[in-house]
């Protein structure tokens, strides 16, 4: 049995589990410091208004309250939350002040920060602050936003933040000659990532040294440090951001939020450590929302089902401000509307409309979940119109392996070009159909069996990964002969320590127990890190790790050569434990250097990986109750070289269930005054253990990515992307007797019941 080079591809049980299962994880709220103050934040209860006055004297006078911070205390100009991705000048006027200055623009916007000896006193004091806000008409949806009758930013004269356009070929010409055209409108609802751990921060200011330590960082700590350094007028080297255990990310956790300035500022302001932990209500109204998109879209086809062109308009409700990654979802709605299909001519624009609601950001499969629902619904409608088999119609139009790399639509204004890297999209579709027993189950489609209508559907997806520009890693051979591994990628609960231990151990040709630990995320571990988003951690960090391992082995050879009195090229490292020179003379690595030997590595990349696959669902619908039972659900994806099949499989299943939440129940509901009506977990429903027991995931690794040395592609988002479209198509298929055509999510019992109210055909 091999003892080395056998870890990648093995279902290794996770290293992280040993602490998590015993309650020994360390999340940011688990931290405490002597003399620590607790922060609580007063938030706007008005969606849109002008601040007339903020009276804090009574709150300041409450025993136990140390101080109260408002915009006035911050300085000349209140810092803005920057755009991390697509930092176009167009967005700058719509940046969010870290604390409300003159206006409030959504319910939940920070107005004042109370610092007190206990969290309870801080919360008590919030009730003693008197805020006078002159209400302005709330812009509650994208239609009202487009009318520009009430403006979020009066100076700009418009609520339109920007319009992106995705173009390929000549759609106008293709539509002019098309034998068949169908136009449809679809909508997906506002929902959110909702990681189970609420956000938290602990800031410590060392006045003597002028240094700040911020615990509670996640996802993109190095970007956040650059941002915070600018905002606080500190050199980056004076700030350390620490990544503790993180209770889920899904795109939302770890972006730079207003509190990421306010809490460090409060620590410097008071000279004491300051801790803040949000409650769930704050989380629901302050953490990035996502997915509220609509489209009017047209497709042109030949009668044989060859897709010719796609064009139309999409609209994304981006909430009150453009912050960090708030444009990504909208960009993806336009750029990936074509999905994994060969559509030669595309012209889709998307309007980013500001409203008086919580700002949006990415949520696992950003824009892709929305646009997959639009497209896969449309494809089923077209197949029905043209009398084509749903599977064959898709098969005919999937991008084929010989077309790789395949150029997709280019996004303007920032000329974002992209191409699919590799893969055979037919194979995942075939496997998915086999697994769900498509042919056999097709006989049930639309049938009333035991009081319920059965439906079957499928959909195909692609998932982007490997965002550049770079990732860094460092490996240290410790004096005791063990290896410490450092990486700029971040852990958000996805099992990164285990995956990186596997990658490093194989690259160093040692067993996994020789890896002392995987240290990730925090700004002190590598010079320049890029974090965890766009399914990039393993692809980018893992590739950097290979480079670091190569460099470390060279450094070990060089050092050993000196000791052995030979050339480095003559030294062989055996099982990562000894260096052997000419004539069998050897030296143990644990005695090689008293300081340890360190080597860095990096991976630079401008291209993206594309994981792909197919989903299929079998549902049984009670037309009288609107209840949808998921009888069977299969996801098949190929994510290139698999590092750990156990964790990839777990990612796929978990991702599907999140997607089913978005398809069936999750909805952040606002009224016309811009009030969030779903401010608790009793109102905002997410899947529970009893909702979706029947889900299977098959993860294949048959087509390694050609664009990175690891051959890996991103994983973790494929399960969520197709879920909305597939479930809607399954319900449409079940209720075909009623001519049901879902055009909107979520498929709540009420909506499904409504779909079954038409007279039966």
């Amino acid at each position: 049995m091999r003892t080395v080079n056998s870890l990648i591809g093995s279902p290794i049980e996770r290293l992280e589990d040993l602490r998590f299962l015993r309650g020994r994880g360390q999340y940011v709220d688990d931290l405490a410091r002597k003399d620590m103050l607790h922060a609580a934040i007063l938030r706007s209860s008005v969606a849109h208004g002008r601040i007339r006055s903020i009276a804090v004297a009574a709150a300041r006078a409450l025993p136990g309250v140390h101080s109260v911070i408002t915009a006035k205390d911050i300085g000349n100009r209140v810092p803005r939350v920057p755009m991390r991705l697509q930092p176009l000048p167009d967005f700058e006027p719509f940046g969010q002040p870290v604390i409300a200055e003159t206006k409030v623009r959504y319910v939940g916007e920070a107005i004042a920060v109370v610092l007190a000896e206990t969290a309870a006193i801080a919360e008590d004091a919030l009730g003693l602050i008197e805020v006078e806000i002159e209400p302005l008409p709330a812009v509650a949806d994208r239609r009202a936003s487009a009318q520009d009758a009430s403006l979020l930013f009066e100076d700009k004269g418009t609520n339109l933040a920007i319009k992106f356009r995705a173009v390929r070929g000549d759609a106008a010409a293709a539509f002019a000659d098309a034998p068949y055209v169908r136009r449809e409108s679809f909508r997906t609802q506002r929902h959110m990532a909702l990681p189970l751990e609420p956000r938290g921060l602990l800031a410590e200011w060392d006045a003597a040294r002028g240094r700040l330590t911020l615990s509670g960082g996640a996802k993109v700590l190095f970007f956040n440090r650059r941002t915070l350094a600018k905002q606080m007028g500190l050199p980056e080297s004076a700030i350390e951001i620490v990544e503790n255990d993180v209770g889920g990310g899904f795109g939302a956790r770890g972006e730079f939020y207003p509190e990421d300035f306010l809490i460090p500022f409060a620590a410097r302001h008071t000279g004491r450590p300051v801790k803040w932990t949000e409650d769930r209500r704050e989380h629901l109204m302050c953490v990035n929302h996502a997915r509220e998109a609509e489209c009017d879209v047209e497709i042109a086809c030949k009668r044989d089902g060859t897709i010719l062109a796609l064009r139309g308009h999409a609209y994304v409700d981006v909430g009150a401000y453009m912050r960090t990654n708030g444009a990504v979802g909208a960009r993806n709605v336009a750029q990936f509307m074509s999905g994994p299909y060969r559509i030669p001519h595309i012209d889709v624009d998307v309007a980013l409309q500001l409203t008086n609601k919580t700002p949006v950001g990415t949520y696992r499969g950003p824009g892709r979940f929305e646009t997959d629902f639009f497209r896969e619904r449309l494809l089923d409608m077209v197949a029905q119109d043209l009398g084509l088999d749903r599977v064959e119609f898709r098969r005919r139009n999937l991008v084929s392996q010989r077309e790789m790399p395949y150029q997709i639509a280019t996004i303007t204004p920032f000329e974002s070009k992209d191409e699919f890297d590799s893969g055979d999209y037919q194979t995942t579709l075939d496997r998915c159909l086999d697994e769900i027993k498509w042919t056999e189950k097709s006989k049930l489609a639309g049938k009333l069996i035991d009081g319920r209508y059965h439906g079957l559907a499928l959909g195909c997806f692609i998932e982007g990964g490997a965002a550049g520009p770079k990732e860094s890693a460092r490996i240290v051979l410790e004096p005791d002969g063990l290896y410490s591994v450092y990486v700029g990628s971040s852990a958000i609960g996805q099992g990164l320590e285990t995956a990186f231990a596997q990658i490093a151990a194989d690259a160093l040709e040692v067993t996994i127990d020789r890896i002392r630990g995987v240290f990730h995320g925090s700004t002190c571990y590598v010079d320049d890190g890029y974090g965890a988003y766009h399914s990039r951690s393993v692809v980018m960090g893992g590739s950097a790790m290979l480079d670091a391992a190569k460099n470390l082995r060279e450094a070990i050879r060089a050092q050993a050569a000196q000791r052995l009195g030979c050339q480095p090229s003559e030294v062989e490292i055996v099982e990562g434990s000894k260096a052997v020179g000419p004539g069998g003379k050897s030296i143990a690595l644990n005695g090689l250097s008293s300081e340890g030997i360190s080597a860095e590595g990096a991976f630079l990349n401008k291209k993206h990986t594309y994981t792909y696959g197919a989903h299929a669902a079998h549902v049984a619908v009670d037309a009288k109750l609107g209840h949808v039972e998921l009888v069977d659900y299969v996801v098949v994806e190929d994510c290139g070289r698999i590092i750990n099949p156990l964790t990839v499989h777990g990612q796929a299943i978990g991702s599907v269930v999140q997607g089913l939440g978005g398809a069936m129940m999750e909805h952040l509901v606002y009224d016309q005054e811009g009030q969030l009506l779903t401010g608790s977990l009793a109102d905002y429903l997410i899947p529970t253990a009893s909702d979706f027991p029947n889900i299977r995931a098959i993860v294949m690794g048959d087509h390694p990515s050609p664009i990175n040395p690891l051959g890996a592609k991103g994983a973790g988002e494929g399960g969520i992307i197709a879920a909305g479209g597939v479930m809607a198509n399954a319900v449409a298929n079940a209720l075909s007797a009623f001519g049901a055509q879902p055009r909107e999510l979520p498929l709540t019992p009420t909506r499904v019941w409504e779909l079954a109210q038409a007279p039966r055909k």
Partner: protein
Amino acid sequence: MEPRLTLADCLRHHLRLTGTHVGCEHGVCGACTVIVDGAAVRSCLMLAVQAEGAEVVTVEGLSNDADLTPLQKSFRRHHALQCGFCTPGMITTAHALLSEEPDCDAARVREVLSGNLCRCTGYIPIVEAVLDARAAYQPKGRDRSGDRA
């Protein structure tokens, strides 16, 4: 101790037993579940003063340094946790269930666990892990390993 202090905050911030997690503070997510006199309860919905004289078992009390317990091993084997935040509540809930009903079936496990939210795993591996751990909870004599969590 202030009368308004919740049992969850008492455990976490006064006794520094931070294995018990707080995810919602309104009794929905189940992350704060502990075992009070044998019953799984939400420590965010109970005041610390109400626990006077009661036996409170947290995830720390269901763990030891030497090795993972059979229930914990089963969670690990089935990859029934990702971010780990809901995990202590899942472990305490499952332990209370299996202690009372070592022969429960999948439907019963799902019903009981439906009071604990997990955003990572999709629940399927958690249900499998709990079912697989049933053997360790069989009364002595029926289970040859006799090893309880």
